[in-house]
C-alpha cells in the first residue's frame, strides 16, 4: 500500500511500486492533465510538484512518494486562476497546449524556490521543458510577469 497526498486529498493505492507516478495519475486515478512526452525525463511534459519541488513523474516510481504531497495541474488552483495561469492567459501562451501543464508546473516549482527569478534563472530552470510549437518567448514573459508581481508583493509586505 502506498500512501500519499494528491492535490490535498489522501490516497492509498495498491499498485506496482515501480509504476511511475505519471501512469498512476493518468491510468489509475484518471487525472489526465499530466502528459506523457518521452518517458525518460527529457522533455518535462510530465512535470508535477512533490512537496513543492518540480519532479518528472515519468521516471519517479510511486514507491518514492510515500508520505509525500503531490500537486498536479488539476490542483494548482481551484478555479484556474493561479497567477501563472492568469499570466498564460494574458500572454496567450499555448498553441497546441500539450506541453503547457508541464511548463506551468515546472514554473510553479521555480517560483516556490525563487519567488523573483531573473530572466537567466527562468531560462535555466525552464530548459527542462520542450515546446515543439515554440512558445518559449511567451512562457518566459509570463513567468517574468509573475516574478515581477512577486517582487512588488515582497516590497509591499516590507
Amino acid at each position, binding site marked *: 500500500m502506498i500512501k500519499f497526498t494528491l492535490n490535498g486529498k489522501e490516497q492509498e493505492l495498491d499498485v506496482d511500486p515501480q509504476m511511475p507516478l505519471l501512469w498512476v495519475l493518468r491510468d489509475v486515478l484518471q487525472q489526465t492533465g499530466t502528459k506523457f512526452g518521452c518517458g525518460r525525463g527529457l522533455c518535462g511534459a510530465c512535470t508535477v510538484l512533490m512537496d513543492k519541488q518540480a519532479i518528472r513523474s515519468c521516471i519517479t516510481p510511486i514507491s518514492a512518494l510515500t508520505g509525500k504531497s503531490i500537486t498536479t495541474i488539476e490542483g494548482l488552483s481551484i478555479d484556474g486562476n493561479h497567477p501563472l495561469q492568469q499570466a498564460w492567459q494574458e500572454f*496567450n501562451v499555448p498553441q497546441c497546449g500539450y506541453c503547457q501543464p508541464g511548463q506551468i508546473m515546472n514554473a510553479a516549482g521555480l517560483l516556490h524556490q525563487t519567488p523573483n527569478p531573473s530572466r537567466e534563472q527562468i531560462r535555466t530552470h525552464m530548459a527542462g521543458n520542450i515546446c515543439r510549437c515554440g512558445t518559449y518567448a511567451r512562457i518566459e514573459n509570463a513567468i517574468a510577469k509573475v516574478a515581477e508581481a512577486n517582487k512588488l508583493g515582497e516590497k509591499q509586505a516590507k
Partner: protein
Amino acid sequence: MSTEPTSTDKPNEDAPTPKGSWLNRRTFMKLGLGAVGTGVVIGVAYQNRYGIAMRVMDYMANKDFDPSAFIVIPSKGKIQLICHRSEMGQGVRTALPMILAEELEVKLEDIDIIQADGDPKYGSQNTDGSTSVQNFYTRLREAAAGTKELFILAASGTWKVAKDKCYAENGHIVHKDTKKKLSYNELALAASKLTIPSNPTLKDEKDFKIIGKPQTGVDVSAFTTGTANYGADIHVPDMVYACALRAPMPTATIQAIDSKKAEAIKGVLRVIKIDPIPASTNVNASVCVIATNTWAAIQGKQALNVKWDYAKAKSRPSSKEYKQQLKQSIDSPVSVYRNDGNALTAQASAARTHQAEYHTPFLVHAPMEPMACLAHVQHNKCEIWAPTQDPQRAIKAVADYLHIKTTQVTLHVTFLGGGFGRKSQPDFILEAVAASKQVRKPVRLQWTREDEIQHGFYHAESFHRMTAGFDADNKLVSWRHEQAHPSMLTVMMPNTDAPTVFEVGMGASDIPYRIPNIRVEVGKATSPTRVGWYRSVANLWNAFAVNSFINELATLQKEDPIAFRLKHIGAPRTQKGIVAKFGQETGRLIDVIKHTKDKFGWDKPTPKGRGKGFASHFSFNSYVACAMEVSCENNIVTVHRVTMTIDCGLAVNPDSVKAQMEGAVVFGLSAALHGKITLKDGIVEQSNFHDYPLLRMPETPIIDIHIINGKPEQPSGVGEPGVPPIPPALTAAIFDATGKRIRQLPIMDQLT
C-alpha cells in the same frame, strides 16, 4: 449571378470560390432536431431552389457538404459554431469561429465552439497545407451572413416591417425605428420555416469587430488547467491499454515471438500480432501487448523477444551510401521542370561559373504528443477517438480494413498535441482498430517516444547541385538547379521514383529571379524508408538550396544579399503558380523583403563578433522574409535575434499569426541546428530527445514578427511559410560571423 457553371476549368476542391457560388441547388440545410438541455435544437433550414450552381466537382468528399452544419441556433441555449478543422496549435478553433461570429454578429464569448466529428456534411476536413483559413474565409463568411439575413427575414416577418429596417447586433435582430429586438434564440423557430437568401451581402471590412483583431485562444483555459482532451485522455468503460513492438523496417516480417516474460508481467492480459497493412496506410507488422494500464503495456513490450525476418527487404540502406546515391542520381536527370532559354549552353559559354552542393537530412516530426488512439470495434461499426489531421482518410482506411461502410465508422477528433503532418497518416488509427478487432474491447494504443521517432513518415533527405553562370559583364545569365530526393507521393504510390512537379514547384522551379536561362531538373530517387509530409514540405530544402546559393552569389559579386535579391527580382510582376493557386506576386515579396530589412536595421553596423544573414521565400501563397543575427564561439552558435515579416493576405487573428511565426522560428532553428534522422541497415538510429535534440528555451532568440495584410480579400497560408527561410538565413549569418560556409544540415554536425 449565372445559375450555370461558367468555367470550363476542372474544378479544384481547394480553390476558394467566388462569392455565393458554393450555394447550389443540391445543397439543403436540413432541420436538425434534437434535445439540448431544456430546449429543442433547430438547425437552420434552408432550401436553395434557384441554385447558384456550384462548379460541380469531382471531389466526392464534398458532395454532402452542408453549410448549415457550421452554425446551430437553438431556440434555447447557446449558439454553437462548429470547427471542422483539427486543432494542432495553429489556432483554427479560434480563427474559423471568429470568421463565423463576425458575419453572424455574435461575440465569441457568448457562443460555444464544437469540434466537428469526421462527417461528410463538413466536406473534406483534411487539415494540412496551411489551407484552413485560406479555403474557408469566404465560404464561412457566406454561411454566417446568409444565416444573419435569414434571421432578419424572420424578424421582419414577426414584426411585419420591411427587412431593410432591421439589422443584426450582438446576437439580436434590432428594428431601426423602434429599437425593439429579438434574440437569435427567440427567432429560431420562425427562421427554420423560411428560405435562406442565396446571395448574402458580406460585411464591409472596415466594419469588422472581430476579424483582424488579436484574439486570445478560445482553448487557453482548457490548456492551462489540464482539461483539454488529447488522444490518450479519453476513458470509456471496459477499455484496455496497448503498446506495440513494431518491425524495425516496413518490409520486415515476424519470424518468431517469445512472449513468456511479457505475459508474466502484472497487468498484461495478452499478446497479439498485428499484420502489416500496406500501401497508403503503411502499418508495420507488430507484436502488441494488451494490458490493464499503459505502464504494464510498455513493460510488456520491453519484455518481448521477437525475431524479425528481413527476407522481403529488397535493400537495407544506410545513410552514408544513400547520400552518395542521391548525389550520383543527379548526374542522370530524368525530368526537367523548368527550362527557360538554354542554361546548359549559357553555362558552357559563361565567363565565370560558380557551383555549390547542398544536402539536407531526413527529419522526424516529433510532436510533443506521441500518437495515441482509442478504437472500439463492434459488430458492423467502429468508434474512434484520435488526434487526426485527416478524418475522411482515416474513416475510409478503417472502413476498408473492416469491410464496413464509412457511415458505420464514427470518428471523434480530439485535440492534437502537435501534428506537423505526421498525424495526417492513419497508421496509428488502423493499429488501434486492428487490436480492438482482435480483443473485442475498446483499445487505446499508446506510442512511446521511441516508437514515434523510429516509425515515422520522415521529411525526405535531399541533395542539390546549383550552378550559376556570369557573362563578361558580370551579369548573372544562367541558373541550373539539379536535385534528387524521395517523393512524398510514395505514401500513396509506393513506386514513385523521382521528385514530382509539385514538390519541385515549392521553391525550386518557381524562383522569382529574372535570369534569362533557368534549368531545374531532377534525378531518380526511391525511398530507403517511409517518407511523408512535414511542416513546409519541399519548401524547406528548396528554400535552403536557393537562398544559400543566392547568398553565395551575392558574396561573390561583392553585393549585399538583399540588394542582390531585389536586383534580380526586378520590377513587380505576377509569376504563374505551379503549386500555389494564385501565382507569386513579386511586388509582395519585395515588400516583405524591404520591411524586414528596415525593421531589422540591416544597414546598421553589426556588433563585433556577430554576423547577419537573410533569406526570403514564397510558399502556401504567402510571402516571408527573415533576417537574423548570430555569434559563433567555440563551435557554439548563439542566435541573438530574428526579424521576420509575413504577408499572408489578411491576418484573421494577428496574435495567432505572430505566434505561428514565433513557433516557426523555433521549429526552423531546431531543424537547421540539430535535426537529423539516419539509417543503418534500413533501421532508424535515433530514438528519443537525447539523440534527436530540439531547441529549448535558453537557445531561443529574441523574435520580432511583423505582419503585412497585403491582400485583405485573400487570406493565405500561415502555419508553414515561416519555416523555410530560417535555415538559410542562419547559415548565411554564420558565414558572415565566421567565414565558414555550411552547405549541409544539421549545422552542429558541421561545426564539431
